[in-house]
């Protein structure tokens, strides 16, 4: 009996999603295609680098394009509904809908302009990299039952350490190498106070962020400014082209002509997704995050598992932090993570505490941000401040249950004490 209700709740959520898609499609037709008074040509350019050329450029009238792509999203919405009725998965249809909607939006937003399409995607991915690392760090932590608000601090601290080490040794690789240790070190703080001293983890995360901001800014002021040649001029990691793959049109330069940090990210995403649900490590992680007392009753040392995973989370965040310095600009600047840690947290929540969900959310947020900067150059109908709000508003919508309830791991944020509930 209960089985049926949980099933129906899940399908209700899916159905709501499909309704939202339908509404968005109509919105797309009206706002992007029908309403605009003028239309103009949109020029998409697809070639970025040395990849094989499929098409160089594509020019389309903005209204025609908006109608066309809106029609595409309508089509995929219908497909989603059809698949849902058949009881099949409709992820593909959601993906297709998103592309249609996004392209219709793009036609509308950049009427009369030039859109570096491949560059846009590549830029979006790049912007998403620290978000993905950050949200995976949050995931490993929170699935084990420790709230991680300190992602920001973990990113910032390891960015600092990577930059300084890279600069001192004049080798970006050393910077990358020490970054996970720096992230892990900050995690030790989180782990000790959350697990041993059982401090409220939200407070703790905030305090750690401030501590790291304070320490890195202090050090930046004391050393990095005075003698920046020695302390703050790290070389950066160079992109590595994956043979052949990098020549693929569009996806080549996007995915396969990147630095080691991004290739490492692919590995970490795949490993986390599989390990979380199919390995002993993942099973134990989820068990201590859901019902620690049950894990204890079968002989699992709850706090040890938590401790270890919080440290691993810090190390993952460390790679994301390294991206800010040795992975992109080389030099460290104070508070350079600029709230990315919180967007990563948002991505984790929006992605319902699953690796693939967090990945998708981080990509969406990354693209939104890249789109903002591309459009703000082109001159856009939407103020860029509103584009910047996208991740935050999306997260509020997600936690408010407007698109189905998101549920955190049951024991997330609750310290565990052995024999505490006698």
């Amino acid at each position, binding site marked *: 009996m209960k089985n049926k209700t949980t099933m*129906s709740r899940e399908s209700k959520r899916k159905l709501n999603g499909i309704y939202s898609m339908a509404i968005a499609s109509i919105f797309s037709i009206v706002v992007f295609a029908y309403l605009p008074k003028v239309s103009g040509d949109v020029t998409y350019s697809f070639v970025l680098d040395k990849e094989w050329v499929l098409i160089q450029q594509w020019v389309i009238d903005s209204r025609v394009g908006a109608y066309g792509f809106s029609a595409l999203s309508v089509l995929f919405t219908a497909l989603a509904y059809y698949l849902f009725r058949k009881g099949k998965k409709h992820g593909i249809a959601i993906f297709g809908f998103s592309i249609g909607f996004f392209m219709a939006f793009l036609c509308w937003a950049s009427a009369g302009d030039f859109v570096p399409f491949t560059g846009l995607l590549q830029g979006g991915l790049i912007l998403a990299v620290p978000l993905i690392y950050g949200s995976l760090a949050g995931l490993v932590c929170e699935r084990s039952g420790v709230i991680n608000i300190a992602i920001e601090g973990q990113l910032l601290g390891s960015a600092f350490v990577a930059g300084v080490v890279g600069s001192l040794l004049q080798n970006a690789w050393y910077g990358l190498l020490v970054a996970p240790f720096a992230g892990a070190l900050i995690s030790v703080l989180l782990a000790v106070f959350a697990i041993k001293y059982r401090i409220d983890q939200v407070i703790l995360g905030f305090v750690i962020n401030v501590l790291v901001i304070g320490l890195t800014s202090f050090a930046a002021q004391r050393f990095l400014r005075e003698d920046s040649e020695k302390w703050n001029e790290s070389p950066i990691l160079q992109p590595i082209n994956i043979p052949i793959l990098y020549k693929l049109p569009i996806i080549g330069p996007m995915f396969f002509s990147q630095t080691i940090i991004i290739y490492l990210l692919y590995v970490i995403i795949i490993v986390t997704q599989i390990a979380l649900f199919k390995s002993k490590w993942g099973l134990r992680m*989820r068990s201590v995050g859901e019902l620690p007392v*049950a894990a204890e009753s079968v*002989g699992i040392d709850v706090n040890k598992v938590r401790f270890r995973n919080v440290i691993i989370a810090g190390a993952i965040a460390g790679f994301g932090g390294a991206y800010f310095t040795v992975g992109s600009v080389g030099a460290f600047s104070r508070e350079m993570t600029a709230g990315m840690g919180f967007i990563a947290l948002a991505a984790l929540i929006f992605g319902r505490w699953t690796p693939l969900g967090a990945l998708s959310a981080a990509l969406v947020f990354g693209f939104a941000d890249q789109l903002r900067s591309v459009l703000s150059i082109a001159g856009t109908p939407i103020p860029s401040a509103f584009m910047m709000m996208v991740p935050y508003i999306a997260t509020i919508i997600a936690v408010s249950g407007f698109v189905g309830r998101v549920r955190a791991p049951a024991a997330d944020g609750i310290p565990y004490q052995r024999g505490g509930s*006698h």
Partner: protein
Amino acid sequence: MSLELRGITKQFGSLVANDDINFKVEAGEIHAILGENGAGKSTLMNIVYGLLAPDKGQILVDGQEIKIKSPLDALAAGIGMVHQHFMLIPVFTVAENIVLGHEKTNRAGLLDLATAREEIIRVSKEFNFEVDPDALIEDLPVGIQQRVEIIRALIYNSKILILDEPTAVLTPQETDELLANMKKLRDSGRSIVFITHKLREVKAVADRISIIRRGKVVGTVQPSASQEEMASLMVGRPVDLTVNKADGKPGKTILEMVDLNVLDTTGRALASKINLTVSAGEVVAVAGVQGNGQSELAEAIVGLREHLTGSIKLSGNELIGRSVDECLKAGIAYVPESRELDGLISSFSITENLILDTHGEAPYSKGIFYKPAMAHQVALERIKEFDIRAQSANDPASSLSGGNKQKVVLARELSRPVELVVVCQPTRGLDVGSIEFVHQRLISERDSGRAVLLFSTELDEVFALADRIAIMYRGEIIAIVPATASREEVGLYMAGIRTATAKGGAA
């Protein structure tokens, strides 16, 4: 295998939960540990299972002393446990729960659930348990969840099984099945420690019975001993579990529920087609196994539930659509199921708890001004009237014992001008002294002309207090019988069986 405890002592602060406990479970016997709530049974078993560390004492298996520092040691020594609150992760499948802690992995480093599935099916067959290894725990009824725990212990090859209050959540029929299974397990050579406070079950299944009172073993008896003997050992004095009361004199109808449905947010009925009346001067008991919609029905009456259809009338006035505050003020006293969660605010003082639902009325407040001095004065009167044992009215409620906490709730609710008293599981977890107090008080409320609606899963309590008994099963009241009905009849209804013989009693 045999299990022996020698001199186990465990203290929590000033409370001695276990005081020099000695007893021995022989191989192939069912040894019951009988004791009141709070006697220290669960603490003792958590020590044996490695969830708590004893301050003193030894644990011996087959005559060899073993050190149990964690459940892992216990499992390695062949001790398995079926917990009162199931130690199963709701979002995991049966198989995942069973491999947890003993995971085997394949060459790729991934979990090997296939072997676990086979073992689950093998053990299920052996004992006639039907369990789907791939079902999610949260989708399973409690009876099946309990079987999962037993299967887990068997797969881990436990020779000594500890069952901690295993019948608390079961229907009488499920209980019978469990008792039969326990015998089967014993006959297969395993030893069973059966922890309970229910005399009937002990007599039905135990080979020997050790009785614990206030953390001490006060005696070991054979199942042939009388219930009275066991009860007096448990409580420490002769007890008379029957409540002295005259026949009720029902007056006018106070509460009337007509075709009431209680729905959840998805529109599913938690309680349906409820038709029940309670009159002044009578106690109506709603019996049933936990989780058959009683809690939801009680909550609906006081306005705690949102999605209702039908009608609830209190002395002719419709209650549906009113807020909790309005329902309470209309004349309902409400004693919720969980004192700790819903009845009291443990960090608030006793005074504040005593005025929790009347804080906005004179003399405790005027306009939006709160007057703590007046509240204190009234609190002192209540503490005296209800014999609440507290150092000071300013102490937090958390400093009180269970019985005194319940007295605070009763004092608060019964001191208001009410017509109807709704009480849910009023004696759960209380010692016998407090149980007697609560029962007497409820009867005197009835005799003073109030209508009493009692929700209880304890049949003893139901029969001790009720003038009429309504039985709930899967959200419906499937029968209403007079208090003279037999225990067996009510038990059958609780299991959802509408027998021909029982029909006559239904009103």
